[in-house]
């Protein structure tokens, strides 16, 4: 075999192997998704989405868990988004490179490395007990907010970093202050990416179980919340409950899969929305 043939053969083998591994990832993903759809689709119906759980959670719907998860997503992001975006702006636009910035970045990284159950424990002791909020949407949302804060700070910082310096120079060259420059030129250009980060953190929040375990999630609460100081059921925790500790696990197994399906659907819709937003808003502010 001459050199050229061997070279071509190696190229084919490398290409084939890389393709095989990439395809196997897609295959695994589709297998899991398919498995959940097949096992869960039979229970998903209009009633399942709009009714309270019944008969020891072996029948009925999961409405309170859906509403609970949506409440947690909205409230926690309402808390985390302003704090995260303002911190990101501060880090990227205002402070110079140096030990202080490195220190904040280090702390942010550490924060994102903490296991989520630790946040749950902290939330229970601080928000639920010390501040006396009890098990409530507000206590759970604050706990979740702390969890996603590093993600939002980082996305904001990265989005602003990607904004070309020439815009900052043009604005300040016209006499704009730093805040005028940031607010009316830099932020609008970075916004599509920041919003994408926001939506991705929403999908992260929707799936977290540990932080809500001791701070808000109810085992069984067949009613909708009236205020942010009420307890709610939540999809991931409900999934855990019906899968492990219901009255009749075999009978509630399809409900578990149905719940998983709804949860995945919510995450999927959010991710698609993030993609779409980035495309639509991104094209509006793109350079020629």
């Amino acid at each position, binding site marked *: 075999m001459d050199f050229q043939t061997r070279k071509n053969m190696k190229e084919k083998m490398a290409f084939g192997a890389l393709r095989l591994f990439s395809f196997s990832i897609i295959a695994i993903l589709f297998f899991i998704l398919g498995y959940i759809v097949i096992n869960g689709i039979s229970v998903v119906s209009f009633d399942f989405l709009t009714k309270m759980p019944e008969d020891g959670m072996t029948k009925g719907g999961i409405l309170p868990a859906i509403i609970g998860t949506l409440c947690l997503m909205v409230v926690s992001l309402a808390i985390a988004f302003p704090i995260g975006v303002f911190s990101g702006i501060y880090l990227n636009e205002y402070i110079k490179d140096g030990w202080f910035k490195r220190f904040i970045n280090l702390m942010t990284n550490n924060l994102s490395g903490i296991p989520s159950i630790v946040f749950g424990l902290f939330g229970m002791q601080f928000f639920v007990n010390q501040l006396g909020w009890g098990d409530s949407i507000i206590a759970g949302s604050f706990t979740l907010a702390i969890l996603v804060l590093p993600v939002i700070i980082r996305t904001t910082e990265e989005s602003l970093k990607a904004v070309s310096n020439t815009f900052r*120079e043009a604005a300040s060259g016209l006499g704009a202050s730093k805040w005028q420059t940031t607010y009316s030129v830099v932020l609008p250009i970075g916004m599509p990416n920041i919003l994408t980060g926001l939506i991705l953190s929403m999908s992260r929040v929707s799936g977290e179980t540990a932080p809500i375990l001791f701070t808000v999630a109810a085992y069984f609460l067949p009613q909708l919340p009236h205020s942010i100081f009420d307890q709610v059921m939540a999809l991931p925790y409900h999934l855990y409950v019906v899968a492990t500790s219901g009255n009749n696990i075999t009978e509630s197994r399809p409900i578990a899969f149905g719940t998983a399906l709804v949860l995945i659907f919510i995450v999927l819709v959010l991710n698609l929305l993030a993609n779409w937003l980035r495309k639509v808003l991104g094209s*509006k502010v793109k350079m*020629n």
Partner: protein
Amino acid sequence: MILNKVEAQDLHLWYGDFYALKGINFSIKKNTVAALIGPSGCGKSTFLRVFNRMNDLIDNVSIKGQALIDGKNIYGKELRVDELRKRVGMVFQKPNPFPKSIFENVAFGLRVNGIKHKTYIEERVEKSLQQAALWNEVKDKLNKSAFELSGGQQQRLCIARALAIEPQILLMDEPASALDPISTAKIEDLIYELKQEYTILIVTHNMQQASRVSDTTAFFYLGELIEHDNTKKIFTAPDKMQTQNYVTGRFG
């Protein structure tokens, strides 16, 4: 004696350890165009940015010596940077309109400087777009996004944006290098017109452009100002050999 409009006296500038400008002495009169030429990295853009203190935005810059406008040191303590930048407009290498409408791009400089009077802003926007020879092309779509304009139109919009706050001096950093020949010709005609009212410093890599648009030309090399004289003299009979070699294309 006519006062120099723009002047540098023994000006030194460092980016951290990098010695970028080495004792520059330079001056131009009111309503003239000075071209700054020289190979990449010679300090000509850095020098340009001294005069609206754009280098302030970069960390670790230190400056020694004096930069003066109308005989006043612009690095003096009593001078506010945003006041300075109202008097010194800048146009950049690549067109960089803001993600706003055509109208709001031009009005931006007025708004950030606290001007709220609606009819005054409208007048200034129209006047500036006319000065930038763009008014006829955009007068029916002032509320459209600036990104819908062509590259050449965007650059003229950026010039209008700089003119709106009525500066006395215009700094242009290779304003035509990203444009096609027709747009470039338009920008050059524009510079010739603007000279009647403004004092202009223009950085360019294009020798023909420098000889076409400028009254005086300054040749920079390795952070030093080698020679600054009438454009005609620089391009036909410069005093220094280095200048001669550069303008004839033997190096750089």
